[in-house]
């Protein structure tokens, strides 16, 4: 026991730094998946909070690993983590951003239309709306 402990002190710990780096990398990779799993929770969906927490922790761990052990392999992990995190941030706040300030606003009269459904039946908005509240859900489509 005592010998092991003192050995650990004498030798640097290449293995544990590697593990630390790998744990960091895993957290960064898992982050976006956790984000997708939690899409139903509004605050998480719009801020990406859980993903950024995990990814931030991952970057910190791999940075710590580099401080302990400056081998190329471990530096590479830190670099990969930083790149992945920045890519995710860009995907979320850059690429995925939609044009804003568009669309009909509250108080306007909804333009009438007649469209066919998947069965070829025509639905007229005015005809429908006079019966009760109508919710239009526009979606991007299926591909």
């Amino acid at each position: 026991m005592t010998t092991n402990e003192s050995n650990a002190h004498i030798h640097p710990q290449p293995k544990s730094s590697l593990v630390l780096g790998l744990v960091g990398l895993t957290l960064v990779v898992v982050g976006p998946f956790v984000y997708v799993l939690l899409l139903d929770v509004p605050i998480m969906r719009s801020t990406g909070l859980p993903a950024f927490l995990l990814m931030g922790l991952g970057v910190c761990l791999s940075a710590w690993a580099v401080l302990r052990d400056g081998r190329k392999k471990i530096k590479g992990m830190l670099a990969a983590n930083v790149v992945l995190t920045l890519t995710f941030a860009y995907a979320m706040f850059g690429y995925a951003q939609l044009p804003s300030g568009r669309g009909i606003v509250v108080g306007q009269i909804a333009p009438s239309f007649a469209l066919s459904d998947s069965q070829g039946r025509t639905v007229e908005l005015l005809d429908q709306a006079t019966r009760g509240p109508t919710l239009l859900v526009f979606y991007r489509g299926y591909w």
Partner: protein
Amino acid sequence: MSELRGLGEVNDELKRQGGRLLAISTDPPVRTKKVVEKNRLEYPVLCDVDKTVIQAYGIVHEGAGPGGADIALPANILIDKNAEVVWTHIASNIVDRLSPDEVLAQAKEFGSALE
């Protein structure tokens, strides 16, 4: 497309108030039919193939569809009996969707305001 799942309850609530939910995309009927069948949707899913409706509602996302086609911005628009818009939610990014519960709460709130 995933936002269409779980909206059955919202449709039921609107029906209780005499109304209905209508889903709309620029997909052709063939693809829309797949969406309806795959998700077993019980409300009409309409095909704005020539994009006149998304233009009229000001929610065109230019060139964002397959092959650079114009598609709809994800949007929820609630309309009252006089065809007046009473509530809207237009997505700010491609994953910004309301959960079915949030939409349901809105439909219920509107219903109770009428009573």
